[in-house]
């Protein structure tokens, strides 16, 4: 009993989704007992325990109930049935900067924000130097927070939350804070906290982060625990599943397709790219890949007027919009060809060493000396994941000798 930090037992939770909620007296009276709502059961009976000092990751697609689970753990919400026992002080990195007041200085906001975590003035006094130095905002700490950039704001907020010294730390989609330097610092701090024996629960889409920190992954699917175990194994299982069953959901939705109207597509239109699909090493269609994996893209196109001396091109951009790689058939000296009828082309990217991020892809058909036929910006999205902690844009194969 004493070495468990969290016990979740048979927890269910459903939400009422009102068709048309009348919160006013008039509406309540007029539609008395006729409030139409649908009950949506988000959690259908979840049980797990977390030992002290253990770090677990909750994974699953959007709407599977993982964020709800986290909210129940923080006690923002309460379960309909079942019990949750938490042993120790809980801090959450769910909503950073809760209660920040733009007109107050960074220092005053530290006090307000930390007090929301339940710290007393004395406790804050003893931590304030750590918090300020962690945030690297020494020079600005007495300026009003409204003068901060959003990056500085998040840094301050994160510094408070991570210095609460909780027994149990709950984290939702973090480490998108600040620049790469600060991110790796946060990550290092998290590992340090874990080493001190803090129990950690992380909800994340970034399997790479989970694999680096967590001892165990819990995969929640449709309100139930589908698999549980060593992150690397569960994550693989999850990815396979995602690749098989959920590609429709994870692909660029048609609303986000590049069109002439949204300015992300141009060219004379003699040939048009109709569809992009990507495959992993096992020839399975998917768009989440591991760093180092081989990716095959199939470009389907239709031709309305033959294109002489055609060129296919690809561009890869990371989340920050930095081009990570780009090439085309001309650069690669593919012998001249023309497009006469609709068909498909392929490009195999071997051993892709791009580091974890979401990548967007441009695909283009050009002709002659680069006359755009159909240029599509951000026509495809894919994610890279990895379980090593190296940082940057792309891995460089390397060897240490010490």
């Amino acid at each position, binding site marked *: 009993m004493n070495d468990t930090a969290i016990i979740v037992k048979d927890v269910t939770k459903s939400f009422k989704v009102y068709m048309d909620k009348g919160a006013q007296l008039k509406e309540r009276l007029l539609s008395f007992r006729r409030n139409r709502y649908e009950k949506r059961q988000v959690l259908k009976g979840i049980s797990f325990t977390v030992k002290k000092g253990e770090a677990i990751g909750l994974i699953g697609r959007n709407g599977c109930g993982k964020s709800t689970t986290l909210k129940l753990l923080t006690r923002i919400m309460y379960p309909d049935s079942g019990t949750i026992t938490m042993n120790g002080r809980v801090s959450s990195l769910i909503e950073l900067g809760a209660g920040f007041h733009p007109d107050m200085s960074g220092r005053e906001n530290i*006090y307000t924000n930390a007090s929301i975590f339940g*710290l007393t003035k004395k406790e804050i006094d003893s931590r304030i130097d750590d918090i300020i130095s962690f945030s690297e905002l020494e020079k600005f700490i007495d300026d009003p927070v409204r003068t901060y950039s959003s990056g500085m704001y998040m840094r301050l907020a994160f510094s408070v939350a991570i210095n609460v010294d909780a027994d149990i730390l709950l984290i939702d989609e973090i480490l998108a804070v600040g620049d790469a330097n600060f991110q790796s610092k946060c990550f290092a701090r998290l590992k340090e906290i874990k080493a001190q024996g803090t129990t950690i629960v992380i909800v994340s889409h970034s399997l790479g982060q989970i694999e680096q920190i967590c001892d165990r992954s819990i995969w929640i699917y449709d309100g139930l625990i589908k698999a549980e175990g060593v992150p690397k194994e569960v994550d693989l299982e999850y990815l396979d599943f995602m690749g098989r069953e959920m590609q429709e959901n994870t692909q660029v939705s048609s609303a986000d397709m590049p069109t002439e109207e949204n300015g992300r597509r141009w060219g004379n239109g003699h040939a048009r790219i109709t569809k992009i699909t990507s495959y992993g090493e096992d020839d399975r269609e998917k768009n989440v890949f591991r760093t180092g994996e081989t990716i095959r893209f199939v470009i389907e196109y239709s031709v309305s007027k033959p294109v002489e001396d055609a060129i296919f091109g690809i561009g890869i951009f990371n989340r920050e919009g930095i081009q990570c790689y780009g090439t085309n058939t001309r650069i690669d000296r593919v012998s001249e060809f023309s497009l006469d009828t609709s068909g498909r082309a392929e490009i195999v990217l071997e051993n892709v060493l791009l580091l974890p991020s979401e990548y967007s892809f441009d695909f283009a058909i050009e002709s002659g000396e680069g006359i755009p036929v159909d240029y599509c910006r951000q026509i495809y999205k894919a994610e890279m994941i990895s379980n090593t902690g190296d940082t940057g844009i792309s891995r460089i194969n390397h060897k240490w000798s010490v």
Partner: protein
Amino acid sequence: MNTIKELYAYRQMIFSLVRKDLRGRYKGSALGFLWTFINPLLQLVVYTVVFSFILKTNIERYYLYLFVALIPWIFFSSSITVGAASVVAQKDLIKKIYFPRMVIPISYVTSCFVNMLLCFIVIFAVILVSGAGFNFAALLTLPVIMAVEYLLALGMALLTSAVTVYFRDLEHILSIISMVWMYMTPIMYDKSIVPERLMPIFNLNPMTHIISCYRDVLYYKNMPDLLSLVSATALGVFFLIFGGIVFNKLQRRFAEEL
């Protein structure tokens, strides 16, 4: 019991919210914090003009008679009307982070309370200027009266703020209720003119007792009537416990309803 322990652990949060509220309240207005004093003073002027020159009363130093009752009343009524909206107003915080939800109405009522204390500076100034004088022994009971009123206001604020989350009209209904309640409490008139058969209702109204205690001490310069004080305390404690229980029950679904 657990709730109290937890609230004690979050005392710093209550303190910060009160400070934030007091500092933020008149932010950007030219007179700033002075509004704390101007507002009740202007109300006093209006009522005094109406009751001394138009509806002539025969109460001596009517402005003082009214003022010592009006300031505590403003504290009470703003606690329940604006306090009712306090939880809804902090929905961003409630939906995103855990803390004992009672912190919000408590800090709101506390900041209204601090405001009342500041207004008491004006009351004492008015008493001094008018030459009415003080009964220092009786003044010692003032903190007790204030504490009882605080408990009562807090109980009501807990009740109204929790119910408002589920039923938003309450906020508007309460402004009417508070107006009716004000006239049902002997603030502008004396308890002695209340018809005998209505007295039971007035006696059930905890504010009747509290206002009469304030008046005993500050206007009549007497010790407060013990029976009034005990009744007020009993009613105050009752409302606090009742409000606390209702709040605790309702707060479980706050995050979903907001």
